[in-house]
Protein backbone atom coordinates (compact mmCIF):
# COMPACT_ATOMS: atom_id res chain seq x y z
CA UNK A 1 0.00 0.00 0.00
CA UNK A 2 2.79 2.31 1.00
CA UNK A 3 4.60 1.50 -2.24
CA UNK A 4 1.43 2.17 -4.26
CA UNK A 5 0.98 5.56 -2.57
CA UNK A 6 4.57 6.44 -3.06
CA UNK A 7 4.49 5.41 -6.71
CA UNK A 8 1.28 7.35 -7.23
CA UNK A 9 2.64 10.55 -5.69
CA UNK A 10 5.87 10.15 -7.67
CA UNK A 11 3.88 9.80 -10.89
CA UNK A 12 1.80 12.85 -10.03
CA UNK A 13 4.94 14.82 -9.33
CA UNK A 14 6.74 13.89 -12.54
CA UNK A 15 3.63 14.74 -14.52
CA UNK A 16 4.18 18.36 -13.50
CA UNK A 17 7.73 18.42 -14.86
CA UNK A 18 8.99 18.34 -18.44
CA UNK A 19 11.55 15.78 -19.53
CA UNK A 20 14.05 18.02 -21.29
CA UNK A 21 16.94 15.60 -21.61
CA UNK A 22 18.02 15.16 -25.24
CA UNK A 23 19.50 11.69 -25.45
CA UNK A 24 22.42 11.21 -27.82
CA UNK A 25 22.22 8.36 -30.34
CA UNK A 26 24.82 6.27 -28.57
CA UNK A 27 23.03 6.78 -25.28
CA UNK A 28 19.72 5.66 -26.77
CA UNK A 29 21.43 2.49 -28.03
CA UNK A 30 23.14 1.75 -24.74
CA UNK A 31 20.04 2.49 -22.66
CA UNK A 32 18.15 -0.11 -24.66
CA UNK A 33 20.91 -2.71 -24.81
CA UNK A 34 22.75 -2.65 -21.50
CA UNK A 35 21.38 -4.54 -18.54
CA UNK A 36 22.78 -5.91 -15.28
CA UNK A 37 26.17 -5.20 -13.81
CA UNK A 38 28.26 -2.68 -15.76
CA UNK A 39 31.97 -2.89 -16.35
CA UNK A 40 34.34 -0.22 -15.02
CA UNK A 41 37.49 0.95 -16.73
CA UNK A 42 40.85 0.75 -14.89
CA UNK A 43 40.90 4.51 -14.27
CA UNK A 44 37.68 4.47 -12.26
CA UNK A 45 37.92 3.97 -8.53
CA UNK A 46 34.74 2.02 -7.86
CA UNK A 47 34.06 0.27 -4.60
CA UNK A 48 30.70 -1.27 -5.46
CA UNK A 49 29.18 -2.95 -8.51
CA UNK A 50 26.89 -0.74 -10.59
CA UNK A 51 23.63 -1.94 -12.07
CA UNK A 52 22.27 -0.40 -15.23
CA UNK A 53 18.79 1.08 -14.97
CA UNK A 54 16.61 3.18 -17.17
CA UNK A 55 13.94 5.06 -15.28
CA UNK A 56 12.81 8.56 -14.49
CA UNK A 57 13.80 10.41 -11.38
CA UNK A 58 13.53 13.89 -9.94
CA UNK A 59 16.81 15.62 -9.16
CA UNK A 60 16.33 18.33 -6.57
CA UNK A 61 18.99 20.59 -5.11
CA UNK A 62 19.26 20.14 -1.33
CA UNK A 63 21.53 22.99 -0.37
CA UNK A 64 20.16 26.13 -1.99
CA UNK A 65 23.09 28.20 -0.73
CA UNK A 66 25.23 26.44 -3.34
CA UNK A 67 23.28 27.11 -6.48
CA UNK A 68 25.00 28.27 -9.64
CA UNK A 69 23.57 30.88 -12.07
CA UNK A 70 20.73 29.61 -14.25
CA UNK A 71 20.30 26.34 -12.38
CA UNK A 72 16.81 25.05 -11.74
CA UNK A 73 16.22 23.74 -8.24
CA UNK A 74 14.25 20.72 -9.45
CA UNK A 75 14.18 18.84 -12.73
CA UNK A 76 13.26 15.56 -14.31
CA UNK A 77 16.19 13.27 -15.11
CA UNK A 78 16.97 9.65 -16.04
CA UNK A 79 18.55 7.19 -13.63
CA UNK A 80 21.31 5.48 -15.58
CA UNK A 81 22.90 3.24 -13.00
CA UNK A 82 22.76 2.53 -9.32
CA UNK A 83 25.10 0.96 -6.79
CA UNK A 84 25.36 0.65 -3.03
CA UNK A 85 27.57 3.78 -2.96
CA UNK A 86 26.45 5.87 -5.89
CA UNK A 87 23.91 6.79 -8.53
CA UNK A 88 24.40 7.94 -12.12
CA UNK A 89 21.84 10.18 -13.76
CA UNK A 90 21.37 11.89 -17.11
CA UNK A 91 20.17 15.46 -16.72
CA UNK A 92 19.38 18.26 -19.16
CA UNK A 93 21.18 20.75 -16.96
CA UNK A 94 24.68 20.94 -15.60
CA UNK A 95 25.21 20.18 -11.92
CA UNK A 96 28.44 21.07 -10.14
CA UNK A 97 30.80 18.96 -8.01
CA UNK A 98 30.02 19.04 -4.27
CA UNK A 99 26.41 20.10 -4.81
CA UNK A 100 24.04 18.00 -2.78
CA UNK A 101 20.97 16.64 -4.55
CA UNK A 102 17.97 14.64 -3.53
CA UNK A 103 17.38 12.02 -6.19
CA UNK A 104 13.78 10.86 -5.96
CA UNK A 105 12.94 7.56 -7.66
CA UNK A 106 9.61 5.68 -7.66
CA UNK A 107 10.45 3.55 -4.63
CA UNK A 108 13.28 5.35 -2.93
CA UNK A 109 14.93 8.70 -2.42
CA UNK A 110 18.61 9.20 -1.89
CA UNK A 111 20.60 12.21 -0.84
CA UNK A 112 23.75 12.34 -2.93
CA UNK A 113 26.74 14.56 -3.58
CA UNK A 114 27.80 15.38 -7.15
CA UNK A 115 31.21 13.84 -7.85
CA UNK A 116 31.67 14.52 -11.55
CA UNK A 117 29.82 15.78 -14.59
CA UNK A 118 30.39 15.24 -18.30
CA UNK A 119 28.48 16.77 -21.18
CA UNK A 120 27.40 14.13 -23.71
CA UNK A 121 25.47 16.46 -26.03
CA UNK A 122 23.04 19.37 -26.06
CA UNK A 123 20.82 19.20 -22.93
CA UNK A 124 22.51 15.96 -21.95
CA UNK A 125 24.83 15.77 -18.95
CA UNK A 126 26.04 12.55 -17.37
CA UNK A 127 26.23 13.11 -13.62
CA UNK A 128 27.94 10.77 -11.15
CA UNK A 129 26.79 11.11 -7.56
CA UNK A 130 27.96 9.61 -4.27
CA UNK A 131 25.12 8.53 -2.01
CA UNK A 132 25.30 10.18 1.42
CA UNK A 133 21.86 9.22 2.78
CA UNK A 134 18.92 6.89 2.00
CA UNK A 135 15.23 7.07 2.44
CA UNK A 136 13.82 3.80 1.08
CA UNK A 137 10.21 2.74 1.27
CA UNK A 138 9.57 0.03 3.91
CA UNK A 139 7.87 -2.34 1.46
CA UNK A 140 10.35 -2.01 -1.36
Amino acid at each position, binding site marked *: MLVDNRQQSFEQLIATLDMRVQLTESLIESLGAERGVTRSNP*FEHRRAARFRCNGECIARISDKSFQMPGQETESLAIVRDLSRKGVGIISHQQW*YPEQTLEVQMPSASVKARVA*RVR*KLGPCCFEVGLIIIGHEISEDS
Partner: protein
Amino acid sequence: MLGFALIPISHLTLSSIFPVGANVYLRPKGSKDAILFLAADQIATTDALNLLASSQDIKLFISQDESQTFQTHLRDNFDLCFEDGGISAHNKAAMLSEVVRNVLSDEFIRNDTNSIVDATKQLGVQVARLATEKSLTGAELCQILHHDFGTFTHSGNVAFYCSLLAAELGFAGEELAEIATGGLLHDLGKLDIDERVLNKPGKLDEFEFRIIKEHPLAGFRRLTKVNEATQTQLLMTYQHHERIDGKGYPVGIGGDDIHIASRICSVADVFEAMTSNRPYRGALSHKQTLEIMAESVSQSFDKEVFECWSTIVNSRLSS
Protein backbone atom coordinates in the same frame (compact mmCIF):
# COMPACT_ATOMS: atom_id res chain seq x y z
CA MET B 1 79.06 34.86 10.21
CA LEU B 2 75.36 35.15 11.04
CA GLY B 3 73.91 32.43 13.24
CA PHE B 4 70.69 31.87 11.24
CA ALA B 5 69.55 30.74 7.79
CA LEU B 6 69.06 33.40 5.12
CA ILE B 7 66.76 33.40 2.14
CA PRO B 8 67.24 35.63 -0.91
CA ILE B 9 64.82 38.46 -1.73
CA SER B 10 64.61 40.72 -4.77
CA HIS B 11 65.66 44.35 -4.42
CA LEU B 12 62.31 45.14 -6.07
CA THR B 13 60.55 44.31 -2.82
CA LEU B 14 62.20 47.29 -1.12
CA SER B 15 60.44 50.62 -1.25
CA SER B 16 61.36 54.17 -0.39
CA ILE B 17 58.00 54.76 1.25
CA PHE B 18 57.61 52.01 3.85
CA PRO B 19 59.97 49.87 5.94
CA VAL B 20 60.39 46.27 4.87
CA GLY B 21 59.33 44.79 8.21
CA ALA B 22 62.32 42.43 8.51
CA ASN B 23 66.05 42.97 8.78
CA VAL B 24 67.60 42.98 5.31
CA TYR B 25 71.13 41.65 4.83
CA LEU B 26 73.45 42.32 1.95
CA ARG B 27 76.19 40.18 0.47
CA PRO B 28 78.52 41.75 -2.07
CA LYS B 29 79.85 39.56 -4.89
CA GLY B 30 82.76 37.39 -3.83
CA SER B 31 82.00 37.78 -0.14
CA LYS B 32 80.92 34.84 2.01
CA ASP B 33 79.51 36.99 4.76
CA ALA B 34 76.29 38.95 4.81
CA ILE B 35 76.05 42.22 6.69
CA LEU B 36 73.02 44.10 7.96
CA PHE B 37 71.88 46.51 5.27
CA LEU B 38 68.55 47.77 6.57
CA ALA B 39 66.89 47.29 9.95
CA ALA B 40 63.26 46.16 9.96
CA ASP B 41 61.93 49.61 10.84
CA GLN B 42 64.15 51.58 8.44
CA ILE B 43 63.13 52.87 5.03
CA ALA B 44 65.52 52.50 2.10
CA THR B 45 66.72 55.77 0.54
CA THR B 46 66.13 56.37 -3.16
CA ASP B 47 69.89 56.44 -3.73
CA ALA B 48 70.30 53.02 -2.13
CA LEU B 49 67.48 51.60 -4.26
CA ASN B 50 69.01 53.03 -7.43
CA LEU B 51 72.35 51.50 -6.52
CA LEU B 52 70.76 48.10 -5.96
CA ALA B 53 68.88 48.35 -9.26
CA SER B 54 72.03 49.13 -11.19
CA SER B 55 74.22 46.49 -9.57
CA GLN B 56 74.02 42.82 -10.50
CA ASP B 57 76.59 41.90 -7.88
CA ILE B 58 74.77 42.69 -4.67
CA LYS B 59 72.44 40.06 -3.29
CA LEU B 60 69.86 40.77 -0.60
CA PHE B 61 68.59 38.35 2.06
CA ILE B 62 66.30 38.13 5.03
CA SER B 63 66.31 35.67 7.90
CA GLN B 64 64.23 32.58 7.16
CA ASP B 65 62.51 33.07 10.53
CA GLU B 66 61.27 36.49 9.44
CA SER B 67 59.90 35.29 6.11
CA GLN B 68 56.27 35.29 7.24
CA THR B 69 56.53 38.76 8.80
CA PHE B 70 58.16 40.00 5.60
CA GLN B 71 55.35 38.60 3.38
CA THR B 72 52.61 40.03 5.57
CA HIS B 73 54.29 43.40 5.76
CA LEU B 74 54.70 43.60 1.99
CA ARG B 75 51.11 42.63 1.38
CA ASP B 76 49.74 45.07 3.92
CA ASN B 77 51.80 48.03 2.76
CA PHE B 78 51.73 47.60 -0.96
CA ASP B 79 48.68 49.86 -1.24
CA LEU B 80 50.89 52.77 -0.20
CA CYS B 81 52.73 52.43 -3.52
CA PHE B 82 49.56 53.31 -5.38
CA GLU B 83 49.15 56.47 -3.33
CA ASP B 84 52.68 57.58 -4.23
CA GLY B 85 52.71 59.38 -7.56
CA GLY B 86 56.51 59.21 -7.63
CA ILE B 87 56.62 55.46 -8.32
CA SER B 88 56.27 54.52 -11.98
CA ALA B 89 53.78 51.90 -13.16
CA HIS B 90 56.76 49.81 -14.29
CA ASN B 91 58.27 49.81 -10.81
CA LYS B 92 54.92 49.10 -9.17
CA ALA B 93 54.44 46.14 -11.51
CA ALA B 94 57.93 44.84 -10.79
CA MET B 95 57.40 45.13 -7.07
CA LEU B 96 53.92 43.63 -7.13
CA SER B 97 55.15 40.75 -9.27
CA GLU B 98 57.72 39.95 -6.58
CA VAL B 99 55.12 40.28 -3.84
CA VAL B 100 52.73 37.96 -5.68
CA ARG B 101 55.48 35.41 -6.30
CA ASN B 102 56.66 35.47 -2.71
CA VAL B 103 53.20 35.28 -1.21
CA LEU B 104 51.94 32.55 -3.54
CA SER B 105 55.07 30.46 -3.13
CA ASP B 106 54.74 30.70 0.63
CA GLU B 107 50.98 30.07 0.70
CA PHE B 108 51.14 27.15 -1.74
CA ILE B 109 53.75 25.46 0.42
CA ARG B 110 51.53 25.91 3.49
CA ASN B 111 48.68 24.42 1.45
CA ASP B 112 45.81 25.88 3.52
CA THR B 113 42.99 26.81 1.13
CA ASN B 114 41.42 29.36 3.51
CA SER B 115 44.70 31.15 3.93
CA ILE B 116 45.40 31.04 0.17
CA VAL B 117 42.00 32.55 -0.64
CA ASP B 118 42.48 35.22 2.00
CA ALA B 119 45.92 36.21 0.69
CA THR B 120 44.92 36.13 -2.98
CA LYS B 121 41.86 38.30 -2.36
CA GLN B 122 44.08 41.13 -1.20
CA LEU B 123 46.59 40.58 -3.99
CA GLY B 124 43.81 40.43 -6.59
CA VAL B 125 42.71 43.95 -5.68
CA GLN B 126 46.25 45.21 -6.14
CA VAL B 127 46.82 43.34 -9.41
CA ALA B 128 43.52 44.71 -10.79
CA ARG B 129 44.43 48.21 -9.69
CA LEU B 130 47.74 47.95 -11.50
CA ALA B 131 46.04 46.67 -14.67
CA THR B 132 44.01 49.88 -14.90
CA GLU B 133 47.10 52.11 -14.79
CA LYS B 134 47.08 53.58 -18.27
CA SER B 135 50.85 53.97 -18.47
CA LEU B 136 51.52 50.23 -18.09
CA THR B 137 51.63 48.38 -21.41
CA GLY B 138 51.22 44.66 -21.93
CA ALA B 139 54.73 44.87 -23.29
CA GLU B 140 56.29 46.03 -20.11
CA LEU B 141 54.34 43.55 -18.05
CA CYS B 142 55.53 40.58 -20.14
CA GLN B 143 59.11 41.75 -19.66
CA ILE B 144 58.83 42.30 -15.94
CA LEU B 145 57.34 38.94 -15.02
CA HIS B 146 59.41 35.85 -14.28
CA HIS B 147 58.91 32.94 -16.64
CA ASP B 148 59.91 29.78 -14.77
CA PHE B 149 57.66 26.75 -14.43
CA GLY B 150 56.67 27.08 -10.77
CA THR B 151 52.90 26.85 -10.27
CA PHE B 152 53.01 29.98 -8.14
CA THR B 153 54.91 31.96 -10.81
CA HIS B 154 52.49 30.73 -13.47
CA SER B 155 49.45 31.63 -11.34
CA GLY B 156 50.81 35.10 -10.61
CA ASN B 157 51.49 35.77 -14.29
CA VAL B 158 48.08 34.47 -15.35
CA ALA B 159 46.48 36.84 -12.83
CA PHE B 160 48.36 39.81 -14.34
CA TYR B 161 47.41 38.78 -17.88
CA CYS B 162 43.77 38.14 -16.94
CA SER B 163 43.52 41.57 -15.35
CA LEU B 164 45.03 43.35 -18.30
CA LEU B 165 42.78 41.47 -20.70
CA ALA B 166 39.63 41.91 -18.59
CA ALA B 167 40.32 45.62 -18.15
CA GLU B 168 40.68 45.95 -21.93
CA LEU B 169 37.38 44.10 -22.39
CA GLY B 170 35.64 46.61 -20.13
CA PHE B 171 35.69 45.00 -16.68
CA ALA B 172 36.40 47.34 -13.79
CA GLY B 173 36.24 47.70 -10.02
CA GLU B 174 35.21 44.70 -7.96
CA GLU B 175 34.59 42.50 -11.01
CA LEU B 176 38.13 43.11 -12.24
CA ALA B 177 39.59 42.34 -8.81
CA GLU B 178 37.50 39.17 -8.67
CA ILE B 179 38.96 38.05 -12.03
CA ALA B 180 42.50 38.89 -10.89
CA THR B 181 42.01 36.78 -7.77
CA GLY B 182 40.50 34.03 -9.92
CA GLY B 183 43.70 34.07 -11.99
CA LEU B 184 45.77 33.61 -8.85
CA LEU B 185 43.56 30.70 -7.79
CA HIS B 186 42.91 28.99 -11.12
CA ASP B 187 45.51 26.23 -10.67
CA LEU B 188 44.83 25.63 -6.98
CA GLY B 189 43.97 22.00 -7.78
CA LYS B 190 47.58 21.37 -8.81
CA LEU B 191 48.40 21.31 -5.11
CA ASP B 192 46.68 17.91 -5.10
CA ILE B 193 48.76 16.55 -8.00
CA ASP B 194 51.99 14.67 -7.42
CA GLU B 195 54.94 16.94 -8.25
CA ARG B 196 56.66 14.09 -10.09
CA VAL B 197 53.80 14.17 -12.59
CA LEU B 198 53.54 17.98 -12.68
CA ASN B 199 57.24 18.48 -13.33
CA LYS B 200 57.90 15.41 -15.45
CA PRO B 201 60.44 16.36 -18.11
CA GLY B 202 59.22 13.88 -20.74
CA LYS B 203 55.89 13.23 -22.42
CA LEU B 204 53.04 12.27 -20.07
CA ASP B 205 51.53 8.81 -20.48
CA GLU B 206 47.75 8.33 -20.55
CA PHE B 207 47.49 7.67 -16.83
CA GLU B 208 49.59 10.73 -15.92
CA PHE B 209 47.60 12.91 -18.28
CA ARG B 210 44.41 11.75 -16.59
CA ILE B 211 45.88 12.75 -13.25
CA ILE B 212 46.79 16.22 -14.56
CA LYS B 213 43.29 16.61 -15.96
CA GLU B 214 41.88 16.23 -12.46
CA HIS B 215 43.23 19.62 -11.32
CA PRO B 216 40.28 21.86 -12.35
CA LEU B 217 37.93 19.56 -10.43
CA ALA B 218 40.28 19.36 -7.43
CA GLY B 219 40.63 23.14 -7.30
CA PHE B 220 36.87 23.65 -7.59
CA ARG B 221 36.29 21.19 -4.74
CA ARG B 222 38.74 23.04 -2.53
CA LEU B 223 37.11 26.39 -3.27
CA THR B 224 33.57 25.17 -2.57
CA LYS B 225 34.64 24.73 1.04
CA VAL B 226 35.66 28.37 1.40
CA ASN B 227 32.89 30.94 1.92
CA GLU B 228 35.04 33.79 0.60
CA ALA B 229 35.39 32.28 -2.88
CA THR B 230 33.05 33.86 -5.43
CA GLN B 231 31.17 32.10 -8.24
CA THR B 232 33.45 33.75 -10.81
CA GLN B 233 36.53 32.34 -9.07
CA LEU B 234 34.92 28.91 -8.71
CA LEU B 235 34.14 28.86 -12.41
CA MET B 236 37.57 30.15 -13.49
CA THR B 237 39.12 27.30 -11.55
CA TYR B 238 36.69 24.71 -12.90
CA GLN B 239 36.42 25.81 -16.53
CA HIS B 240 39.81 27.19 -17.59
CA HIS B 241 40.55 24.01 -19.62
CA GLU B 242 37.18 23.97 -21.37
CA ARG B 243 37.39 24.74 -25.09
CA ILE B 244 35.10 26.89 -27.17
CA ASP B 245 34.30 23.85 -29.41
CA GLY B 246 33.21 21.79 -26.38
CA LYS B 247 36.15 19.39 -26.53
CA GLY B 248 37.88 20.51 -23.36
CA TYR B 249 37.67 19.19 -19.82
CA PRO B 250 36.40 18.48 -17.19
CA VAL B 251 32.81 18.82 -18.50
CA GLY B 252 33.07 19.44 -22.23
CA ILE B 253 30.89 22.53 -22.37
CA GLY B 254 31.50 25.07 -25.14
CA GLY B 255 30.70 28.58 -26.41
CA ASP B 256 28.88 30.92 -24.08
CA ASP B 257 28.25 28.11 -21.59
CA ILE B 258 31.80 28.79 -20.48
CA HIS B 259 31.85 31.78 -18.13
CA ILE B 260 33.46 34.87 -19.69
CA ALA B 261 36.07 35.02 -16.89
CA SER B 262 37.00 31.41 -17.68
CA ARG B 263 37.35 32.25 -21.37
CA ILE B 264 39.67 35.10 -20.41
CA CYS B 265 41.61 32.79 -18.09
CA SER B 266 41.94 30.15 -20.79
CA VAL B 267 43.70 32.57 -23.18
CA ALA B 268 45.95 33.93 -20.42
CA ASP B 269 46.74 30.43 -19.16
CA VAL B 270 47.80 29.02 -22.54
CA PHE B 271 49.79 32.14 -23.45
CA GLU B 272 51.61 32.07 -20.12
CA ALA B 273 52.36 28.37 -20.31
CA MET B 274 53.78 28.60 -23.82
CA THR B 275 55.92 31.67 -23.13
CA SER B 276 57.46 30.17 -19.98
CA ASN B 277 60.21 27.65 -19.52
CA ARG B 278 58.85 24.18 -18.84
CA PRO B 279 60.66 21.02 -17.70
CA TYR B 280 60.20 19.55 -21.19
CA ARG B 281 60.92 22.61 -23.37
CA GLY B 282 62.15 26.19 -23.43
CA ALA B 283 59.95 29.28 -23.65
CA LEU B 284 58.47 30.24 -27.01
CA SER B 285 58.55 33.85 -28.19
CA HIS B 286 55.38 35.94 -27.92
CA LYS B 287 55.12 36.10 -31.70
CA GLN B 288 55.43 32.31 -32.11
CA THR B 289 52.94 31.74 -29.31
CA LEU B 290 50.32 34.03 -30.79
CA GLU B 291 50.75 32.37 -34.19
CA ILE B 292 50.25 28.90 -32.73
CA MET B 293 47.26 30.03 -30.68
CA ALA B 294 45.75 31.75 -33.75
CA GLU B 295 45.81 28.44 -35.65
CA SER B 296 43.41 26.86 -33.18
CA VAL B 297 41.42 29.90 -32.17
CA SER B 298 38.08 28.62 -33.50
CA GLN B 299 38.47 25.35 -31.58
CA SER B 300 40.09 26.52 -28.39
CA PHE B 301 39.34 30.13 -27.56
CA ASP B 302 36.75 32.85 -27.56
CA LYS B 303 37.72 34.73 -30.74
CA GLU B 304 36.99 38.18 -29.34
CA VAL B 305 39.00 37.51 -26.19
CA PHE B 306 41.92 36.09 -28.15
CA GLU B 307 41.96 39.01 -30.60
CA CYS B 308 41.92 41.45 -27.72
CA TRP B 309 44.90 39.67 -26.16
CA SER B 310 46.73 39.66 -29.52
CA THR B 311 46.24 43.41 -29.76
CA ILE B 312 47.61 43.90 -26.25
CA VAL B 313 50.69 41.77 -26.92
CA ASN B 314 51.23 43.05 -30.48
CA SER B 315 51.20 46.62 -29.26
CA ARG B 316 54.34 45.61 -27.41
CA LEU B 317 55.91 43.81 -30.33
CA SER B 318 55.45 46.75 -32.66
CA SER B 319 56.78 49.20 -30.08
